[in-house]
């Protein structure tokens, strides 16, 4: 008897109106209807004949068509009953050896961060990825001084977001990726054009929008979808934005994210490790997409990232991200800021000023 098995890296995700097969190895997803999701998941690993029989053989041709579609697109394969046990499902557990995997450090003209202390403590936590966001102009020498402090650390990547000054400065800053090879991305906002290019091993981005505060964060877009085993499994178990993240806002306050109001102390008065060892900061890490209203019915929930700072109902931490314009019940994307139901929250966060 013929048995069909999805490849372990091809995982069906059910949505309210349609479902996905997420191919975690090829970074691809496929839309599938709820009927096919049911065929794939409701019967367990049974033979094709058993599946057809369960529908009283009324839909044999359609079921054949489906399995042909899955096989021809290399989403699964045919095998025999004896071999089924040799293909276990992918373990969707997630863990990391680091207490913190990523960090955001915001600063503006009023900031007086001790970057040496911050980087030392992030190093101790095993942090691998850092994003530096400057909401005011930063002097080139100051920037190089900060980057110099990252020398000989275990850090993997640094992203820099800063205001555009002029083309000469852009070239100077972009050239820093030659010397500081941990830089993976440099984004200039308030720029004259929207474009991006590659310099050495870094992505250089120019954006005309003036990103002058953390209020701009939290965008939910299909362009931010990420499909890989690490992100998928983390999303299944934990919050896809805040898990193992720590941030220092422009005033030096330690937070989950600079956009959140909850503070855990000033970086000059407490160490990051002291904050991370407390349970308080970990509460938001555990809010995965299956706990978030509307998101739990969305087929994209495990390839999307989350935002707990700006939500549709500010008093409800389990409500949908404010800046998401996708409706899983209609499968339509709309501009989130025009939605009349979001206007109250937009006012609450004082986003009209941006």
């Amino acid at each position, binding site marked *: 008897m013929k048995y069909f098995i999805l490849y372990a890296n091809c995982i069906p995700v059910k949505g309210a109106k349609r479902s996905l097969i997420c191919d975690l190895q090829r970074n691809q997803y*496929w839309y599938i209807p709820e009927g096919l999701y049911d065929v794939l998941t409701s019967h367990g690993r049974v033979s094709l004949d058993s599946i057809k029989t369960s*529908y009283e053989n009324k839909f044999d041709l359609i079921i054949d068509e*489906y399995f042909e579609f899955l096989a021809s697109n290399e989403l699964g394969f045919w095998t025999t009953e004896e071999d089924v046990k040799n293909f276990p499902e992918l373990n969707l557990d997630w863990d990391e050896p680091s207490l913190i995997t990523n960090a955001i450090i915001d600063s503006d003209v009023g900031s007086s961060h001790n970057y040496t202390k911050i980087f030392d403590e992030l190093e101790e936590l095993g942090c691998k990825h850092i994003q530096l966001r400057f909401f005011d102009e930063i002097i080139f020498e100051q920037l190089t001084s900060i980057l110099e402090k990252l020398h000989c650390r275990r850090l993997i990547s640094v992203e820099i977001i800063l205001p555009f000054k002029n083309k000469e400065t852009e070239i100077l800053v972009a050239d820093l990726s030659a010397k500081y090879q941990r830089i993976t991305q440099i984004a200039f906002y308030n720029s004259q054009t929207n474009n991006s290019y590659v310099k050495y*091993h870094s992505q250089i981005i120019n954006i005309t929008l003036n990103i002058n505060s953390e209020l701009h964060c939290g965008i939910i877009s299909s362009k931010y979808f990420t499909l890989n085993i690490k992100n998928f499994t983390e999303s299944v178990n934990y919050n896809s934005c805040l898990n193992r993240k720590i941030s220092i806002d422009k005033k030096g306050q330690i937070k989950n994210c600079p956009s959140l109001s909850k503070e855990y102390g000033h970086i000059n008065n407490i160490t990051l490790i002291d904050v991370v060892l407390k349970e308080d900061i970990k509460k938001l890490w555990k809010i995965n997409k299956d706990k978030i209203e509307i998101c739990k019915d969305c087929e994209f929930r495990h390839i999307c990232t989350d935002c707990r700072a700006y939500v549709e109902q500010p008093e409800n931490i389990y409500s949908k991200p404010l800046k998401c314009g996708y409706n899983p019940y209609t499968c339509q994307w709309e501009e989130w800021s025009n939605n009349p139901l979001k206007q109250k929250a937009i006012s609450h966060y004082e986003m009209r000023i941006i």
Partner: protein
Amino acid sequence: MSKELEAIKNITLNLHNVKAASTDDTNVLPKAITIEKYNSNLCSVYPIYKPISKILPKE
């Protein structure tokens, strides 16, 4: 109609809609949508597995 039959009917409807649900064109089988890797230049030696923040406009 029994629950079972109703379920089968629903599944049938969905099965017939498979192509429609997959693309805007009902006559075309679904195509894979490939996600651009974050930092899509693919030049980073150690690509980041997820966005650190979502502050940059993506349109």
